[in-house]
């Protein structure tokens, strides 16, 4: 994808762009969301967002900064000049005063466009919503367009993969559904080499801290993997848009269906993510199944709560949820797999003792005996396996 001089667009818009602009500037309806997606901190997402802010403002759009974090980067900070900023809200939490976006003030100001950095940000307790993307939803509900930024690692469906690649946990996560509602995603791309160069020059973190980051997280290998994830994310989305227009609203191109069993175990939480990856890769529908058996009624409280969380995750990842009652688990899965013509089944791995192994067959084996055309995948509880 080549990026023509963006300013040329502003001078002579094509018909499509004019239409897009009319849609964009219309005062009624839900606000549009445009997201600058990057592979890592420091690629220039906020910078690009602010540049867009200036271009729009120069065209006469009523635009404000809802929240921008410059992390003291001078080039970025300089771009804030000339843009109206909605003052931040100060929230005191257990003796620490934290600055957050003032949602009510942005809504009251009612601009046409609001720039809101870091879509995956977690708000301090005491904020109207726990997550910034929920603030953004409210703002869009009010008909205000939002331009935002995020790093690929915060996306729910890839967070585990990123944690495995980089060895660092990903604490802030954004449901894939939220990004899917974006009207436009723009990839802010940079070669790993160039980003490392920027870091070395202290353009991302102060130089002394940059060195640790370069050695640990921002290695050439990590960045290459993260870049690939971002590129794939955007490419898949473009493909998805093509499929939609080819298939119409029916979605008739879907021929494969991935079914995943949710049972509240840690392995099933991972199984849901893997199933979503698989479904995305083969353009399949995703179905999450909970089988209620007489035995499962004795599920302990912890597991019931984890099960609900995993189902919430599954919904976020675009799954249909089906709860089925059956005398036993295999029967329940078989019933749904037949009705929904599943082609793949993803099962959480369950460790069995030596004795159990002699007396009972694994769930996957039993299922294959009944539906031999199925492809069965078994997923373990940890993402840190041998060489994975």
């Amino acid at each position: 994808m080549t990026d023509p001089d963006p300013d040329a667009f502003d001078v002579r818009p094509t018909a499509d762009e004019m239409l897009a602009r009319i849609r964009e500037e219309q005062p009624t309806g839900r606000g549009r969301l445009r997201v600058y997606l990057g592979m890592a901190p420091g690629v220039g997402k906020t910078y690009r967002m602010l540049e867009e802010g200036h271009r729009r403002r120069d065209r006469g759009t009523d635009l404000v900064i809802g929240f921008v974090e410059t992390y003291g980067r001078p080039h970025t900070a300089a771009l804030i000049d000339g843009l109206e900023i909605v003052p931040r809200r100060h929230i005191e939490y257990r003796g620490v005063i934290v600055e957050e976006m003032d949602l009510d003030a942005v809504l009251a100001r009612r601009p046409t466009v609001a720039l809101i950095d870091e879509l995956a940000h977690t708000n301090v307790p005491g904020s109207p919503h726990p997550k910034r993307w929920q603030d953004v939803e409210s703002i869009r509900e009010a008909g205000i367009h939002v331009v935002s930024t995020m790093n690929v690692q915060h996306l729910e469906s890839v967070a585990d993969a990123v944690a495995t690649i980089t060895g660092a946990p990903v604490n802030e996560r954004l449901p894939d559904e939220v990004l899917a509602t974006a009207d436009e995603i723009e990839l802010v791309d940079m070669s790993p080499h160039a980003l490392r160069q920027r870091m070395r020059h202290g353009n991302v973190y102060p130089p002394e801290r940059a060195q640790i980051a370069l050695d640990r997280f921002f290695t050439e290998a990590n960045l290459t993997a993260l870049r690939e994830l971002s590129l794939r994310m955007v490419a898949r989305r473009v493909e998805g848009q093509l499929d939609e227009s080819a298939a119409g609203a029916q979605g008739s191109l879907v021929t494969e269906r991935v079914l995943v069993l949710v049972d509240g175990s840690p392995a099933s939480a991972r199984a849901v993510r893997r199933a979503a990856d698989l479904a995305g890769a083969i353009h399949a529908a995703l179905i999450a199944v909970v089988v209620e058996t007489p035995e499962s009624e004795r599920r302990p409280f912890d597991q019931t709560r984890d099960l609900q969380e995993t189902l919430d995750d599954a919904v976020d990842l675009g799954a249909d949820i089906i709860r089925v009652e059956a005398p036993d688990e295999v029967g329940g899965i078989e019933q749904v797999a037949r009705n929904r013509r599943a082609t793949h089944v993803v099962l959480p791995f369950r460790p069995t003792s030596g004795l159990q192994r002699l007396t009972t067959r694994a769930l996957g084996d039993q299922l294959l005996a009944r539906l031999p055309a199925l492809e069965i995948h078994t997923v373990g509880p940890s993402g840190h396996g041998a060489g994975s």
Partner: protein
Amino acid sequence: MSPAPTSPSSDLSPAEMPQRVLLVEDDESLRTVLARHLRGQGYEIAEATSAETAATAIADGFRPGLVLLDINLPGQTGWDLLRGAALDAAGSPPVVVTSALTIDPRRLAEFGVAGYLPKPFPLETLIATIERLLSSEEETENA
């Protein structure tokens, strides 16, 4: 500048050490908020829920460039950590004390506390304090 080889956590070059912060705070959600913001600034953070776990982290080889210490902790207080041998073992990094109760400045001086933030304080002030103390450490080490 050529990238240094990755060092195991217990064996860091002096230039690396100052960028690690040991965060001692018993309130889990506050600790999470602080750790998230500091990590966002590129600091490496170890979290401890009590004076005892802070001492254990140091005994396990964590060498912070700075300790952020809440004084009012369950079990042993922050004063106990300041009094004990753990911080000496860590090379006596500067300590920033936070407290909801007012502390006598003489007491802070007596314990050699490098920074004191009475609650409530803005997060920005905390970050600026850490930033200032760590960069002055850097200068001393390079001098």
